[in-house]
């Protein structure tokens, strides 16, 4: 292999790139396939570079991404190009210098050594956090009661959980003050949470796709006369099926958005499809459209607020602000005025005479 690649390369860098492209060629050359069968790619790459007199070593690297849990270390090759140590993914090739990778350890044999136990694994949880000076100062206080005192994996959870009250406030406002109809009281919040993971446009498109396909399949289910519990269970399985098919198809077509579809709460989706189907049968497609678009609109609004970086910052760093949200929800709960939708619905009352002052409520 080296004899063929070496004459085409000028320095360590181009040699590494050539080797990586040889390794990822499909179908692999016979020699490469044989070697890859015996050695993991990173180890093979290191050995090849060493054989060509390039200083190289196998390292463990962590890919950095906010809010990721159960991430594992990846094995990369690192080589000396004469001036710097350069990181090389044995499959995809050289990494740009600003890639979000953390070099975890070089060459050491293992991350975790266990004596007398088995089945142990090491996984990593990551969270991007902005620490205020005050927070850092009190970090070691034994009475520290902030969310920062939690383990990082829990903090990642709370970053999402702390956004839920914002979504709840949006739902309460849209239902009580605007008078929008939504299907399921808090389904829009869960949708908004999913949109946070999928980004808005791919999220909305794949959601519509799943619901429409689900409704089509549901029309067949109603011909089977299933009992309710069985029907919902069937829908859950079908929804998972649809999501898998859509994911695979969109990946094959090169649309990466499909991959994130699995963030949708599937049980909720199944219930939504069931409720929409019943609504369709009883009230007609118009009502389905009204409630469906109502839910979607509320979800998008909630998403807009929840992905606003200032809102994220305030919600996580100053959890006490949620008392204000609570107060607003309580106030809205006592709101007795007209809903905006009623101003349209009750428009025909324009022709009703006004009451005399004495009767006026």
């Amino acid at each position, binding site marked *: 292999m080296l004899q063929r690649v070496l004459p085409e390369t000028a320095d360590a860098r181009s040699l590494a790139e050539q080797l990586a492209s040889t390794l990822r060629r499909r179908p692999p050359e016979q020699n490469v396939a044989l070697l890859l069968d015996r050695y993991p790619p990173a180890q093979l790459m290191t050995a090849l570079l060493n054989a060509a007199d390039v200083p190289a070593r196998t390292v463990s690297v962590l890919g950095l991404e906010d809010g990721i849990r159960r991430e594992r270390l990846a094995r990369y090759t690192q080589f000396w190009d004469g001036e710097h140590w350069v990181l090389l993914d044995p499959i995809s090739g050289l990494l740009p210098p600003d890639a979000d990778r953390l070099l975890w350890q070089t060459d050491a044999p293992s991350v975790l050594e266990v004596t007398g136990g088995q089945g142990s694994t090491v996984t990593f949880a990551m969270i991007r956090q902005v620490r205020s000076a005050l927070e850092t100062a009190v970090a070691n206080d034994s009475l520290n009661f902030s969310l920062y005192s939690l383990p990082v994996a829990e903090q990642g959870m709370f970053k999402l959980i702390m956004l839920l009250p914002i979504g709840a406030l949006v739902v309460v406002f849209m239902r*009580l003050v605007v*008078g929008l109809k939504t299907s399921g009281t808090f389904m829009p919040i869960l949708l908004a949470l999913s949109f946070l993971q999928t980004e808005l446009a791919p999220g909305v498109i794949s959601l519509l796709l799943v619901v429409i396909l689900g409704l089509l399949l549901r029309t067949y289910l109603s011909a089977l*006369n299933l*009992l*309710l*519990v069985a029907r919902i269970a069937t829908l859950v399985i079908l929804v998972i099926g649809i999501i898998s098919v859509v994911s695979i198809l969109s990946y094959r077509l090169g649309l990466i958005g499909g991959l994130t579809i699995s963030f949708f709460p599937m049980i909720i989706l199944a219930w939504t499809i069931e409720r929409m189907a*019943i609504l369709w049968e*009883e*009230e007609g497609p118009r009502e389905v459209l009204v409630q469906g678009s109502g839910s979607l609109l509320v979800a998008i609004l909630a998403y807009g607020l929840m992905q606003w970086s200032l809102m994220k910052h305030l919600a996580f760093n100053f959890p006490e602000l949620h008392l204000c949200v609570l107060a607003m929800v309580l106030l809205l709960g*006592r*709101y*007795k*005025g*007209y*809903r905006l939708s*009623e*101003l*349209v*619905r*009750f*428009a*025909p*009352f*324009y*022709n*009703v*005479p*006004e*009451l005399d002052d004495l*009767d*006026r*409520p």
Partner: protein
Amino acid sequence: MNVPRWISPWALSRRGILGMNERNCGYILRYNQREKFPLVDNKLKTKLITRQAGLEAPKLLHVISNQTEIERIGDTLAEQDSFVIKPAQGSGGKGILVVTGRANDRFLKSSGAELKLIDIKRHLSNTLSGLHSLGGKPDVAIIETLIVGNPALAEHSYEGVPDIRLIVFQGYPVMGMLRLATRASDGKANLHQGAIGVGLNIDNGAGIAAVQYNRPVDHHPDTGTAITAIQVPQWMDLLTLASRCYEVTGLGYLGCDIVLDRERGPLLLELNARPGLSIQLANNAGLLPRLRLIESRPGFFQSVDERIAFARQHFGVVTASTSHA
């Protein structure tokens, strides 16, 4: 009549219109105790307490509560030519199956469609599994006698039996509406589906105004009846029946749905602890002044007759033209 696209909240308030939030907050939560809701949300319970109190209602034939009873339904119904199947916890008229007659082994619906025994069984099975109940809870099905509508009213309706909704506040009937099925509503007296709602004069049961799809109409679109020519017969019996529901249920803010049977007169169909607001549109009047008037009355006990006399005196409309003067 010229209808603007929207109306300001102050204009609504000046006309005494009750909104959804105020209804929920100021009336339902305040006057209807939570533990009494099941009395009206479950038609079987309603049936039992109203029968005990001697209120007239369609006769309860059977209660179907498990699968074995469904299997035997053919024998159970052998004596019945006509009947109505209702989910005990249905809402908004969902899951109601009306059988008006039989032809050989087939059951006939009011629309003329034929059903086989297996269709009846499937409907019952769906009902028990909670298809028609609020939140999909498991339910029981009740089977009642079919109501034969009073012809004086039924002639105004396109198919179906018209029903009368009365809002009863602390025992006072405050507002009434007659629901007439139309071709658009498929013979169902459901306002959402296009039935027309006719506002009724509390004093004498005459038609005042009407709406279809929340917009005013003068005539029934299919039968051509002029709204002001409608007169509900046996009006006093109807008011009495509705007013008595207050003592029976203890619910302060109540919607009573009543039908007029050809032979038995007013029958209580069902009760509703969260009656809708469209009745205001049908009456072309707001509920608030009437509710406030009753709230301002001293709270001592008033008999049914006294309450009805008060309601007729204060909530009756002389005629549509003089009310504008």
